[in-house]
């Protein structure tokens, strides 16, 4: 019967597999997103009522904070495996709930992200799952921050993106240091396995952070598409003319948030640093013998982005904010690709060692 024949053929389309790396990566991101949302129970639902009831809520919260004051203060220094840690998270949640301005909320989020990293710094000799948990919460904070920034209306966009970018860069430097220190722990199989688990979590956090950095520049996060349409992006990303209409149209077309000219020099230095870091790390990976084809591909792409970033920089005039941003975006992409390569380089070796 031809009907059942076609049914079988259609059912066979089910054999097509999704990429394992994507499935695992998305699961980790989803878990981080869930953690970030769980820090804000019912944020959407309460927002309207909350605005109406703000003075009352603030008063009640202040009362609550006074009541739990002593515990709250003690909890501020607690770590994920300690009894008071949930109190610390609850206090943070309250702090966020009573903060209404976008810029202020972003700053609170960044502060919480710093707190998560401080915990990571104190957990280095603890079981890896504690570090992984703290880093997942860090990713959650970064994702939430990026969302706040990318949802931002056009009021003070450059101030907001600048705050976020600088803070994320500092956090990335901290994560890099943790990563380098984790590399050194190399005695015994068990210890090595723990180090690798931590390292992969640190890489993921770095990647989330650099994605947050991209989002703070108003860059679309669909990589291949936005690269393919980069010329169109750059046309849109030209500095806006003054006036509310220009600002409004910039926002609605999704163009990049403009950077004030005095930040361009800093940006150039940052690009150079990112490029050099990525090159250094790529060269270190190059030295390893057992690189997979996937890893090679990621490294080649990273190298290509680095070259593109350098070209853009050399072609850009000092006042060309769009070209600078484009160079910066390419350098960040290179950095991300290189991190991905590093993650995939660590993961197969972890599996091998587990066998």
């Amino acid at each position, binding site marked *: 019967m031809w009907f059942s024949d076609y049914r079988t053929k259609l059912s066979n*389309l089910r054999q097509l597999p999704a990429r394992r790396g994507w499935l695992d990566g998305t699961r980790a991101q989803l878990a981080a997103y869930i953690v970030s949302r769980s820090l804000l129970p019912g944020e959407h639902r309460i927002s309207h009522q909350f605005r109406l009831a703000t003075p009352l809520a603030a008063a009640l919260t202040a009362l609550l904070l006074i009541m739990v004051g002593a515990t709250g203060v003690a909890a501020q220094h607690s770590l994920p495996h300690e009894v008071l840690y949930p109190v610390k998270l609850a206090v943070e949640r309250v702090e966020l709930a009573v903060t209404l301005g976008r810029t202020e909320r972003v700053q609170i989020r960044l502060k919480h992200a710093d707190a998560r990293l401080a915990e990571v710094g104190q957990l280095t000799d603890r079981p890896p799952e504690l570090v992984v948990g703290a880093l997942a919460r860090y990713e959650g904070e970064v994702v939430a921050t990026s969302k706040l920034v990318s949802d931002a209306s056009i009021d003070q966009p450059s101030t907001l993106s600048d705050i976020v970018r600088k803070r994320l860069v500092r956090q990335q430097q901290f994560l890099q240091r943790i990563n380098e220190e984790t590399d050194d722990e190399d005695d015994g199989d068990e210890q090595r396995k723990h180090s690798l688990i931590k390292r992969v979590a640190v890489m993921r956090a770095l990647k989330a952070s650099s994605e947050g950095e991209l989002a703070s520049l108003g860059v679309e996060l669909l990589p291949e598409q936005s690269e393919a349409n980069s010329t169109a992006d750059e046309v849109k990303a030209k500095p806006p003319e003054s006036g509310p209409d220009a600002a409004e149209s910039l926002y609605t077309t999704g163009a990049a948030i403009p950077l004030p000219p005095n930040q361009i020099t800093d940006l150039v230095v940052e690009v150079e640093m990112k490029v050099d870091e990525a090159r250094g790390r790529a060269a270190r990976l190059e030295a390893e013998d057992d690189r997979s084809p996937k890893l090679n591909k990621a490294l080649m792409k990273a190298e290509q982005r680095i070259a593109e970033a350098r070209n853009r920089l050399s072609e850009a005039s000092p006042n060309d904010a769009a070209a600078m941003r484009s160079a910066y975006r390419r350098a960040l992409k290179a950095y991300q690709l290189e991190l991905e390569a590093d993650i995939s380089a660590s993961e197969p070796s972890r599996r091998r060692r587990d066998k």
Partner: protein
Amino acid sequence: MSRTQSVAEAKFLEAYDALAQPLWRHAYYRVGSRELAEDMVSETFTRAWDSYRERDVDNLRALLYRILHNLIVDHYRKNRPQVSLDEVEDTLVASVPGSIYDLPQLPKLLAQLPEIWRQVLLWRFVDDLPAADIAKLSGKSTANVYVIIHRALRELRRLAPR
């Protein structure tokens, strides 16, 4: 974090493990791009979590398919298809190892069907959704879904080279 919240999280991540693959496949056969399908499915799960945590959801699978379907529809509203199924055919065939069926033809044939027919066939045979769920997703009656399946299969047969 409350116990209820942890249970909800665990259930949601279980749903991810069970449904991420089929949802991706569905998106892939409809948009013809691996990466775009991946982005859409990631977005589907984050949006679904926002709904899931705020209200009772009886049928999480139907919710996920509904969100994904809306994303695909939005995508086509904003952009014309960038890659045709013809172009991705090689990748597709290469990714189905040892298939004894004439898969090379099928995506091409599917691409020639009206959008709603293709959609219904994918929901029914690739995603294995019951006709009642397909009826809800497509806004048609269950009887109409069966009619569409029948006509679409007949059309596939007509289009197939002899």
